[in-house]
């Protein structure tokens, strides 16, 4: 297997944490961005690259770039600026995605589709 395809367990778990705590980071209001970014950096330290890595995997498949952009637009349309709001939205979507089998599998790890899209957004920004 190519080295770039390997997704260690540690990276996966850290990326999930990144998704849980910092999703939507690039498109929040600037003040909120700084505040959340600081919190996330303290929490995650250097683990955002793991989320970006997953995002790149997701984007490498046809049609996924458009999906990620649509998700970004949806978050903006819903005016989900605060991390807690985004987290709630993601949680609901995650449950829905898993319920309907909308999953993205990378190196065996099974993501909800929304999680993969958020990672893709992080990768895009």
């Amino acid at each position, binding site marked *: 297997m190519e080295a770039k395809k390997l997704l260690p*367990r540690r990276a*996966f*778990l850290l990326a999930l*944490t990144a998704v849980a705590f910092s999703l939507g980071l690039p498109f929040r209001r600037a003040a909120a961005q700084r505040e959340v970014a600081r919190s996330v950096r303290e*929490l995650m330290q250097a683990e955002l690259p793991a989320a970006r890595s997953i995002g790149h995997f997701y984007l490498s498949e046809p049609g996924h770039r458009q999906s990620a952009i649509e998700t970004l637009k949806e978050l903006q349309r819903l005016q989900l600026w605060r991390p807690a709001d985004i987290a709630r939205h993601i949680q609901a979507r995650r449950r829905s995605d898993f*319920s309907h089998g909308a999953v993205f599998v990378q190196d*065996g*790890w*099974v993501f*909800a589709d929304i999680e993969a899209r958020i990672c893709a957004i992080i990768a895009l920004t």
Partner: protein
Amino acid sequence: MIVDYRSSEIPNDITADLIVIGGGAAGVTICREFIGRSEKVCLLEAGGFDYDEQSQDSYRGKNVGLPYFDLENCRLRYFGGSTNHWGGLCLRIEPADFKERSWIPLSGWPLTHEELSRFYQLAAEIVEIGEPRFDESLWNDLDTQPPQFDPHKLITRFGRDSPTRFGSQYREELKKAENITIYLNANVTKFATSAAGDHLDSVQISTYQGKHGSAKSNAFVLATGGIENARLLLNSDVTPSGLGNSSGLVGRCFMEHAHVSSGLVASGVDSALRVAFDKHPTNPGLNAFYAGWRAVHDRRFPEHPFGIAYNVLRHFETVATALYGKVAYNEFGKFLDPADLRSFNPHLALAPEVQEQEQVADICATLWGRRTGMMDVLVRLEPRPNPDSRVLLDDERDQLGLRRAVLDWRLMPEDRKTVAVFMKTLASELGRLEAGRVKIEEWVLNPASPWPASMYAGNHHMGTTRMSRDQDKGVVDPDCRMHDVDNLYIGGSSVFPTVGFSNPTFTIVSMSLRLAEHLKSKLT
């Protein structure tokens, strides 16, 4: 009465109303049903009361298919049969397993679960598991909150632990029975049929010491296990293809429960998932350690080309360890007293991977504010009936002159889909419930990958004399009578047309009770 056929005081030739060949779970169960009745019943047991190298050697054979245990180690050839080393786990075949599934060739039992359910009830006493309950209601007995899976996707079933060694448990009872005679060291080596080959007149009995005789009856039951039933029938020279083999299916459709590591679950140590599947030492009769889930086979869900998968989650235990443990269990199981086997743990030791899992757990504890552990998902796979998976005969012969068994165990590409669909279903359900996250093994997702080397089996030998109403699709009819031979019945899991995920012994005993009832009605 129990006698040693080798003794010069025992006549060479035997006559009985019913002759049962094989003293394992099926044979013992059938004989017990005739205790106190007017019919004279003889049980021909190839071995004695204990393990014996000479007798066991007749089980030696070759494996030419998927890696499998040595054939002389995965079953036992003495009174009590393989119940002398069985793990004791009892599960019922699910009602849905009896139904024909149009997307699975050769699926469907020619009887319903309802027809068998009352025998399951009776069998529970014989295997000493108490109430034959295996479903979600048992969570209450464990005082544990289970994961709230969507019942249309995953169901939970519990294995119940049986302590029963049939050979020792029921020996005295059979010994005292006036109408039952058990002949030890009586090897069946030949079938003597009518000229047309459709009626069995007698079987030839031989000892390693050179004594020969015959056992004559109007009704026979062959119950020597899923490999040996096929071997004995194929060895018969009544026709070139063996006895009762007009369908060509004797020996075919051999099925085993492949046990294979299929992924990992990352889950909080304090989660319901972990608690639910932890050991419950206060409930030893409930083997929650082996509780597992089955993907519901419902065609409403996409990608369901499959039977069923069953999984077991273990704490910090690798499948490789389990494999080595199983091999060791089979090896030692021949020599240990059956009673001592209860304390023998086939899952012996921790492997180096445990350390890595612990490290991951530490990372998660930091990030999630709670400890997380990795659990191995060990899938117990229900295979599709596959005619190419089979018991054949070798050119080499055993000491009795019978050709040895060759096992060509195979799985189908669709069986891998079963695992993949199950793992994705499990991942989605655990993700939805936020109960854990799943990593699926690479081999599951890549059809080009071979089955993993760590895959092992359950010592469950099934399907080689399959049951069907249709003579072209089965060896025995719904009464377990051979389509081709009007007075020869088959007992044991070789008649199972499909096998579900359940350990077979509980169903073997239930089916034997059913067969005994049928025989009683025929013999009176």
